């Protein structure tokens, strides 16, 4: 979380108009989901990878981790899709032993699993792109421009801020516990963890009260106003987005 945020706030694409970045990510995401074609999915994955590595300045090591991360949920998910009950013996090229009726992988189920895997990977990379290049403030700005209800934007903004506050406090409580040998055995580790969770809750409650004070002290009246950021749109970026959309659409229609 923190890592993503650091890149979004310091990366090379921070100065690019957030509307363009959101459009780019959203267009690629929607096309990948809509066509559900392996070619389009792979193309989106490759385009996003190229942009992240080439223009956003994401280091190769981090990129490697980013590729591996989704597989934690993709592999079990796709296995569940690939394994089907077999109507008749002989259609599958892999059969699990000891199951009745027989369970195995057929060519069709495997193809479906691969399609889902590629599609998910493409979708995850669209979101990676957004998370690694667009700071939350800019995202909120786009949400406002897109006429998202104020309450939703504010909720998102406060949630975002408090994730860090909460993570920070959690880390501090953990350090405090660990320095007093709170995690030396399985038994006291569980006990400490319970204390941490309870402490975090109480603390979050206290914090929300203080936040109310801080907001009211500055004349808060139910609305979070923001200053316009004044991003300059770029014709080149728009052209590139349009080109990508056309390319992906053609690919989706042809293949």
């Amino acid at each position, binding site marked *: 979380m923190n890592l993503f945020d650091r890149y979004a706030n310091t990366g090379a694409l921070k100065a690019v108009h957030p509307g363009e970045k959101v459009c780019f990510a959203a267009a690629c995401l929607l096309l990948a989901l809509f066509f559900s074609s392996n070619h389009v999915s792979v193309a989106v994955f490759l385009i996003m990878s190229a942009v992240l590595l080439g223009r956003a300045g994401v280091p190769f090591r981090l990129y490697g981790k980013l590729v591996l991360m989704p597989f934690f949920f993709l592999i079990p998910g796709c296995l569940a899709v690939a394994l089907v009950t077999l109507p008749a013996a002989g259609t599958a090229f892999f059969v699990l032993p000891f199951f009745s009726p027989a369970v195995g992988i057929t060519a069709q189920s495997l193809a479906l699993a691969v399609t889902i895997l590629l599609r998910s990977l493409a979708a995850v990379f669209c979101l990676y792109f957004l998370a690694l290049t667009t*700071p939350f*403030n800019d995202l909120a700005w786009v949400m406002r421009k897109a006429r998202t209800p104020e309450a939703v934007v504010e909720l998102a*903004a406060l949630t975002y801020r408090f994730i860090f506050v909460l993570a920070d406090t959690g880390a501090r409580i953990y350090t405090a516990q660990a320095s007093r040998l709170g995690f030396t055995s399985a038994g006291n580790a569980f006990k400490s963890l319970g204390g941490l969770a309870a402490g975090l809750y109480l603390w979050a409650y206290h914090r929300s009260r203080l936040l109310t004070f801080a907001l009211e002290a500055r004349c808060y009246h139910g609305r979070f*106003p923001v200053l316009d950021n004044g991003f300059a749109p770029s014709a080149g970026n728009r052209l590139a987005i349009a080109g990508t959309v056309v390319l992906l659409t053609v690919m989706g229609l042809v293949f």
Partner: protein
Amino acid sequence: MTRYIIQVEDIHYTYPDGTGALRGLSLSVAAGSKTAVLGANGSGKTTLFLCLNGLLKPQKGTICFDGETLSQKRQALKKLRSRVGIVFQDPDTQLFSASVLQEVAFGPLNLGLKKEEVLRRVTRAMEITGIAGLQDKATHLLSYGQKKRVAIAGILAMEPEVLICDEPTAWLDQKHADKIMDLFCRINRAGTTVIISTHDPDLAYAFADRIVILEQGSVLGAGGPEAVFLDDDLLARAGLRQPQVLETYRKLRAGGYLREGFPLPRTREELLQML
């Protein structure tokens, strides 16, 4: 005649858990003055400040701001809070925006000002506090000292008549603490009434032109810094030590080591000049 911007008359506040934070506290703050509220932890400093901003309502007693009794009506509160700015001790409780610029702009935008005016104030506040280079940074990536200055800038941008700062130098290193106190002096010269809380007698003595000592929710003693800090009896009752500059001055003077014709020294530099 002195114009009192804040007059507190016998206020009581007890927290829901039964802690009696304020017990019959009275004090007056002159417009344009620098007041330091001294007191141990739990003496009621923070609660007092929350009351002065209308964030807590005293169960008993009255608070007057600029001659008007504080009311709990929405509009009156908004007006009060636009004139009295409060900087909280822990900047993490105050900063909630994701970026520094938005954070500093929050207050002025709430005042309903035009965008140009907001930008002017924000830019000025960020310049005064020395955080102009941080404006696009995310607040959670700042260091503690930076957060503290952003919190102060967020209040300064509202251009309040009274600036209240709870423990302005807590957890800051000497250099940044000096900078902040220097900043408060400048703001004060420009006409803003400044109230700080601290438990550091040296800081209070160097900064303030009026000292208020709190103990257990009421005022133990108040007056000019010389009067308060030369009152050994009062200091003993408050459990405070004399500011080092003053203590050294008295010892040196008693020994006849100092040149005559100087006023009471407030800072180390002034004392050194007298040697």
